[in-house]
């Protein structure tokens, strides 16, 4: 193995203007991000499948164990806490918007702050 710093890097982007498929700016980027994330979901699913298969090869029927698993109160609590935390992060912009409304923040108040900080 060559030292990491000396190693060459492949070219990552193709030369040639990329067409814009959607009129609204940003949608093309959003679509590509969604598909990259979809790919990662599939990759993780493959990895879990690999775990079950490797375990099985070692005599542990992980898949059947997972199906038979009865969640106790602590496990139910932990999972529900994770889901609520995840949803909170997923909808962080909604939380932000609600807080802005509560605090009556606006573009005007933001610009006023910039103007104010510049001189005070």
């Amino acid at each position, binding site marked *: *193995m*060559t030292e990491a710093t000396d*190693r*060459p*890097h*492949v*070219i*990552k*982007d*193709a*030369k*040639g203007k*990329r*067409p814009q*498929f*959607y009129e609204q700016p940003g949608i*093309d980027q959003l*679509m*590509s991000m969604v*598909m*990259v994330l*979809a*790919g*990662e979901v*599939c*990759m993780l699913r*493959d*990895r879990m499948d*690999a775990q079950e298969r490797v375990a099985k090869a070692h005599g542990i029927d992980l898949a059947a164990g997972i199906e038979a698993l009865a969640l106790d109160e602590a496990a139910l609590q932990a999972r529900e806490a994770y889901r609520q935390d995840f949803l909170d992060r997923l909808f962080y912009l909604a939380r932000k918007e609600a807080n802005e409304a509560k605090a009556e923040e606006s573009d005007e108040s933001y610009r006023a702050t910039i103007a104010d900080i510049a001189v005070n």
Partner: protein
Amino acid sequence: MLNCFQQAHHDMLPRPTHDEASRQEFAKSLKGFIQSGLLPGLAPVYQTRAARGFEREEGRPPADRRDIRKAMVGDPYFKLYASINRIAQELLWESTNLSVERELPELIERAKALSAASKAQLVIPEGFVPPRYVTALDIHCMPGGYASEVCEDDVSVGVLYDRGVFLYSMGYGGPHNDDMGRSVCNYIKRNRPDFAPRRILDMGCTVGHSTLPYKEYFPEAEVWGIDVGGPCIRYAHARAAALGHEVNFAQMNAEETSFPDGHFDLVVSHILLHETSGKAMPRIFKEAYRLLSPGGLMIHADLPPFDLMDPFTQFILDNETWYNNEPFWGAMRDMDQIALSEAAGFPKGEARFTTAPMAIMEFMGAGYDAEATESVADREFTAGEYAPGGGWEVLIAQKPVDLAAAA
């Protein structure tokens, strides 16, 4: 039958990690889904709303592929199809490059060792300049194109092409991605059983996918692959050695090679012509004629010309021109290849299109069971697919045995 085709490993391919392999499989699966899940929706969308919209605005129905494009380009379903298709193309290169980047120095060392151990020639001339039609854009959105080098003795785009094209073609080209070459060889063997070429030239061979079958089917022949991409040629030579074949490779332009007149009995190309240009293509036909010995055969295998298909299929295929960095894809299909052959010197009425049946039935390996390969060979041609069902359209022309009599 699900497509579980797997590429056969050889020493010049990286060993992807579990996650890299999974991401590459996702890109291939996404392409498969686009074909089976999104592409079929284009026809009803066109018939029930896009064509009617066009007729309302223009006062006449769409007449050709340009009209159909005009009708479809603003349709939300078409936008989804076209954008996801583009993203799938980007993801297949991106996911493949993960493995290339991780193993590049080791791959370069392996290429050097394999090439050094081969008796076949590897010719990379000093100061060779690839033509503009392969450097102006990175064709089919492959980062770096065919000719970019990121370090000394670089093979990176060769590796990228070998793995990426397997994913692009969804494995329909077989475990070694060599179905086109194999099918043309089969065709020659069946139709010309006595043909025994002494020297064979594969023009625009890239990494030699289609070149190697010629050595397999004609082991006595001296086989040459030429391409304008230096890293591809370097990689092709090492890949051939890794697969146990002694095939010569040279960085050369098919428009103007350095071989003498009449040097080859067989001059072939596979998916080369649509990546050249309006000026280069006639020159390539002329060069093929010059290089052929009397009685020699020229065979070009590419996708069918537009006049062999309906306007809607033309429109689907032409999306490659607009969305996949394939500047000559559409224009090439409008070229009169019979006339080009005659202008190059082949006698009138000699050049013709014919079908070389797909050799995929002969493949065996991971995912290539009999039922899966039969379903590939038997299916109908579907626009937008890499490999048409049944066979490859090939242009074939023979140089007269008696040149004086033909003149």
